[in-house]
């Protein structure tokens, strides 16, 4: 008759107990949060017993407040830079063959290509063959090896581009580098628990809780912060003037009408920096102190020794921030950047320089900021709505099914506890739609019990005795419960894989809610009904 084996009972109650234990920390949210922060910081953590689980449900940005950015990395920029850097090699090998290929000259190429005009177009095949010798092997998609460059020609122009395999490899490197630098910059700013993820081929998702505006975040990560030290050839006020081959025209940051003609090849770049700190110059103006690594220090020392009395330019993101004259050889490997800064700017610049420069620029496709107050309002409103809906369902169930309704209610309370326990265990994020998912689960979770109870009512009319009716009720309702919940679970799963951000949070709570509600309906209420039945041994039954 109505029986559940002892080990099954232990298993069911143990599952509930473990789930509820994991949900427990969420009841003391701020306390546990402080405890976890202290633990992460390596300090002695107080205020929460260390033998208890301390995992919390993460709050999404819409509840906690913070900034969300979706950026696209301009991968193609790196191709151009790569080929630019390839030019000296190409020039050298072609120069050696000058007698056959004739004079060579770099042309303005399109995006992602290097164009070289050669004097004797008849010798193009020969030139292409020479340039091809520079190719390095990269592993291709099919697993074999292929060249990293593709050499072709149009008329008297020899064109070098990156091969597809090399582009893919470059993309991966660029993305990894960008993510790393963004992470460092965000960490430098001291914000907590940022999310920085690669999405698709060229996108980066950045979420920083507790940040007041997306603008702050954009300032921090959107700036390439490409620092170079370049030789100054001259100055001009003509923005359309030609700089000459190998040179470039760069605007001054302080004076919009002033342009510097600079040698394109930098003396030293920001990559050689090991440290940068905000400081003040001898006039008390905010400035940035920097230190080079050994190779940077050597190059910079050599250059300053050779060019005393000449100006050199400090260029940041295509603007000359200052162009001091070299007073003496700087061999110590450290120096100071002065410019028209205030303290905030010098602090930000030093942060950016420390973290390194982005390999390519970022374009922002999506940005969202939610203030912490709005998030808190949403949490409060969500809590009240949950409570009221919860109580309404509890009362309604008790009125409809009496004792059995009470069992369903206890199961429902355990159910909500289990949802929070699971959310904490897997470290899922709770969003505002996620709260809606919980409320919906509260409403729908009783469905399985309703199916069972209605079935018991029906069986009572025909079956022999209450025990048999209960047994048949559970047995016959099972297929409907399983089928109905699998279909809902399928839609939740699709929502999870297709949806973004907050909607995903909804799919998670809905999906978990389905699992826990089936568990509580099939096992938890059943065990309660069985225990009650063994205790009361009723002759008749009213459901």
């Amino acid at each position, binding site marked *: 008759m109505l029986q559940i084996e002892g080990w099954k009972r232990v298993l069911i109650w143990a599952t509930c107990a473990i789930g509820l234990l994991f949900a427990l920390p969420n009841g003391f949210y701020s306390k546990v949060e402080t405890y976890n922060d202290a633990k992460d910081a390596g300090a002695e953590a107080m205020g929460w017993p260390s033998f208890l689980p301390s995992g919390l449900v993460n709050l999404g940005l819409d509840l906690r407040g913070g900034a969300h950015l979706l950026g696209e990395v301009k991968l193609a920029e790196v191709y151009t830079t790569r080929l630019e850097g390839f030019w000296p090699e190409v020039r050298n090998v072609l120069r050696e063959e000058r007698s056959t290929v004739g004079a060579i000259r770099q042309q303005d190429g399109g995006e992602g290509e290097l164009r070289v005009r050669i004097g004797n177009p008849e010798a193009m095949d020969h030139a292409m063959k020479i340039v091809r010798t520079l190719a390095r092997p990269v592993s291709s998609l099919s697993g074999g090896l292929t060249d990293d460059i593709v050499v072709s020609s149009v008329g008297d122009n020899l064109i070098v581009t990156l091969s597809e395999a090399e582009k893919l490899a470059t993309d991966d490197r660029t993305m990894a580098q960008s993510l790393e630098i963004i992470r460092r910059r965000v960490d430098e700013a001291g914000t907590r628990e940022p999310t920085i993820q690669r999405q698709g081929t060229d996108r980066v998702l950045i979420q920083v809780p507790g940040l007041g505006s997306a603008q702050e975040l954009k300032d921090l990560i959107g700036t390439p912060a490409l620092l170079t030290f370049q030789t100054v050839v001259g100055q001009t006020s003509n923005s359309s003037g030609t700089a000459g081959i190998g040179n470039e025209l760069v605007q001054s940051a302080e004076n919009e009408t002033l342009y510097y003609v600079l040698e394109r090849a930098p003396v030293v770049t920001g990559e050689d920096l090991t440290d940068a700190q905000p400081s003040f110059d001898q006039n008390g103006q905010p400035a940035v102190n920097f230190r080079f690594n050994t190779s940077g220090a050597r190059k910079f020392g050599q250059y300053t020794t050779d060019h005393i009395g000449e100006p050199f330019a400090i260029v940041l993101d295509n603007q000359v921030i200052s162009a001091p004259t070299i007073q003496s050889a700087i061999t110590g490997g450290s120096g100071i950047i002065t410019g028209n800064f205030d303290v905030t700017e010098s602090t930000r610049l030093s942060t950016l320089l420390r973290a390194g420069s982005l390999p390519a620029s970022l374009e922002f496709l999506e940005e969202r900021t939610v*203030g912490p107050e709005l998030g808190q309002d949403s949490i409060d409103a969500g809590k009240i709505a949950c409570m*009221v809906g919860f109580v309404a369902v509890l009362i309604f169930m008790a009125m409809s099914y009496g004792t059995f309704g009470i069992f369903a209610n206890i199961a429902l309370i355990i159910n909500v506890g289990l949802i929070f326990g699971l959310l904490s265990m897997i470290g899922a994020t709770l969003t505002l739609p996620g709260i809606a998912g919980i409320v919906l689960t509260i409403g729908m979770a009783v*469905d399985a019990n*309703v199916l069972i109870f*209605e079935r018991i009512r029906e069986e009572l009319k025909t079956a022999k005795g209450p025990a048999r009716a209960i047994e048949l009720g559970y047995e016959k309702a099972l297929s409907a419960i399983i089928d109905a919940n699998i*279909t809902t679970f399928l*839609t939740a799963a699709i929502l999870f894989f*297709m949806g973004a951000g907050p909607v995903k949070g*909804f799919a998670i709570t809905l999906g978990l809610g389905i699992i826990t509600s089936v568990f509580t309906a099939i096992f938890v209420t059943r065990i309660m009904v069985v225990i009650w039945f063994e205790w009361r041994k009723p002759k008749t039954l009213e459901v």
Partner: protein
Amino acid sequence: MRLRLVKQHTTFNFFKDWKIWIGISAVLVILSIGSTVTMGLNFGIDFKGGTTIRAESTVAVDVAAYRAAIEPLGLGDISIAEVFDPSFRADQHVAQIRIQAQEGQESVASDVVLKLEAALQDVAPGITFPSVESVGPKVSGELIQSAALAVVIAIAVVLIYIWLRFEWQFAVGAVGALVHDIVLTIGVFSALQIKFDLAIIAALLTIVGYSLNDTVVVFDRVRENLRRYKQKNLSELLNQSINETLSRTAMTSVTTLLALISLFVLGGDVIRGFVFAMIWGVVVGTYSSVFRGQLNSAATRREARLV
């Protein structure tokens, strides 16, 4: 004494007036499609691109003054709407400002937002901006695609599942009812011009799940009755099965609505549209699960026996 929503034993004949019910559903579906075609949907920035700014002030919102302050910035199409919610404090006045996606830009440049915020600060000193969201056209295009895809995949997956578990006629009936529910929901969003954004797609998919939940329960009973009463004809069986599950359908709909209505009233204005979609979906889904027998019988008219 127990609370009973539905009498213990019912013998409604849901098939008697099937022409009327099909007629009502057909009219509603046509109205929904008509409304969606003529009035369109009030797409949120998730799908259209653009920026929404939530502005909160301690003085009453003056929409005209806000508009006058923003218009000189030349941001194109702007809409300003005051937001009301019972949970607001007495001196909490909230407005939702929406700017169209700007030409040739992805997400709106922050300097535009800053200018706008400064302009509003002149009109309403002490105004704050608790949420600013901006979506570029590139992302919104993708979001539309993946949202539509999600709904289609959900319907397809469910169709396959029901086909595997039941008979193909059941799957056709279920999906017919499902499309009916979704079309009516989209129709109501168009008729009332409620903001249609990503969360609404989530609501639509939930409706898919809920509507099926009901259907599957009825089908499960039909399957059982088919085995038990070999002599009854199909429409009689369908009718009996709907009657037998009616009490459960009513109970579940009421508990779900109880929870959703409390969320609708107390859950704050941010998710009200989302919750409204689900409430509507539950109502429509319950209606169609009770009266969807017609669709099924239409699909299986010529078959004397199903199994």
